[in-house]
């Protein structure tokens, strides 16, 4: 893999994918927490704001850019599954 392609992959992982995963993480949390509705909404926002910087750093910190796919894809799918389950439950 060329350096340029790796860089593009990292950028995609850090910005659009990172944002999506943090939005999913927040949504997932707000569907499963046992608090009041307003509490859950804010908890989701706070969680998302922590997750995005972590994924951002990780996208550039992980040595092999290809491992990002094997890391972020299952994470995103897991959260999507949890969100669907959360909606079913509600």
């Amino acid at each position: 893999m060329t350096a340029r392609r790796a860089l593009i992959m990292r950028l995609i992982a850090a910005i659009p994918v990172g944002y999506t995963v943090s939005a999913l993480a927040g949504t997932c949390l707000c569907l499963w927490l046992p608090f009041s509705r307003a509490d859950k909404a804010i908890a989701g926002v706070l969680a998302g704001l922590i997750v995005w910087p972590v994924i951002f750093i990780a996208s550039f910190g992980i040595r092999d850019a290809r491992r990002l796919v094997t890391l972020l894809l299952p994470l995103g799918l897991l959260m999507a599954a949890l969100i669907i389950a959360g909606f079913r439950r509600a």
Partner: protein
Amino acid sequence: MRNTFRASMALVHTTLGLVTGWVLFAIALSGSLSVFRQEISLWARPELSVTPSDPLLVDLHALNWLSQHAGHAGAWYLTAANERSPAATALWPDAKGHYVQRMLDPSTGSPDGIRDTLGGEFFYRFHFELQLPYPWGRLLAGVAALALLVGLISGIIIHRRILADFFTFRLSRGQRSWLDLHNLLGVAALPFHLIISFTGAITLGTMLLPWTTLVLYPHDITASYADLNPALYSRPASGHPGHLAPLLPMLKEAELHFRGTGLEQIYVFNPSDRSSIVTVVAGNAHTVSTTSDVITFDGPSGKILKEHIERRPVIRAYIFLYGLHVARFAPAMTRWLYFLSGLALATVIGSGMHLWCLKRLRRPGHRGHRIVFRLNVGILAGTPLAFSAFFIGNRIFPATMPDRAFYEVACVFATWGITLLYALLRRSNHAWPELLGADAVACLSVALMGPLWHGGYITAVSMTALALSVSFTLGTLHTTRKVHT
């Protein structure tokens, strides 16, 4: 492994810094100024008599004036007087429906004779809205806050010798000195920088990540605001005329319920209607959190309709973090520390941008680099100049000029534009001393226009301007020496 990790973190640090540095510099500088928002607002209105009196009476005078002069407005939004700000500020729609915002005289409640200016509000709004239309300014500021957070973390990772170089600041070594300054200020005030960037992102969090709200309130987004603050209540006008019950007992009762936090906001909806309501929001004295305790009274009877004291755990954590950022709680000492730490953050960002330029100055000839160098001078030296133009405009424009507040703001952006253009056209080693010199002169004139010897808030603002002027003078002398050697 270690080296490639560091190298890629260095790439993140440099690129993010370059992309967001200028916006962050302006945000950090205006944020530092908005720590003293109330004081700047008072400085901007020297005609206001600031003999301290009971804040409740001041609010009452303001509400009485509004009931006589804006009785048929749909709503009055009053920012209550408190220990720091001896006058109340009101926002209300006039007969044509345009919103008017004015500070009201503490003893008469009238805005007459007090100049029309935004005062400290300008810097406060600019800090998170960047004078851009809603929601773009806020989104940009939110993304910038997250970028600052990532920049700080990657900065810690690439700074190899944090402990060994802890006190290292070597003078007159060119690029090395700039790196020392960048590291010293960055590391010493690191807890502040981390907290302020993260809590800054939190204040705009619901804009950056609206998804949780959309999921939990799928049918009605306004329900989320009502849920966040259950006692903020509104009802439509009945169409039958009515009278407000005496307001002082309501304010006194609210103050009693809030247990010493004081009052922050007073809203009156449909004041001349039978279904009028009065909402009182708790203040911030003695609590770090921005308190969201609210009481709503029925206007005609003066009885409590709804009361909300915040006890929900996550919301409490949220308003605590929010409160850490806006520092409304802060006594004078903490406020100065916030101000100085904010200036330190602006210096870290500025020195980082300058370092980027210095490293690339060694390899001359790149057109893009040259443009960035020059714009960098324009932003770093031009932002303080533009901000001082606001203060100068406040004193120069006649007090009765129509649309005065607008022209003050226009003054800032005109100065900014001219400075950027000047920096773009002038060679950067000449532009530095010239623009820094202009900063020094501008700050000095702010200090003298105060006037410096007036006393109280005005002298405090002037002394700060004077201190800044001295440091800009030192910068001018330093950069002039460089031009001649």
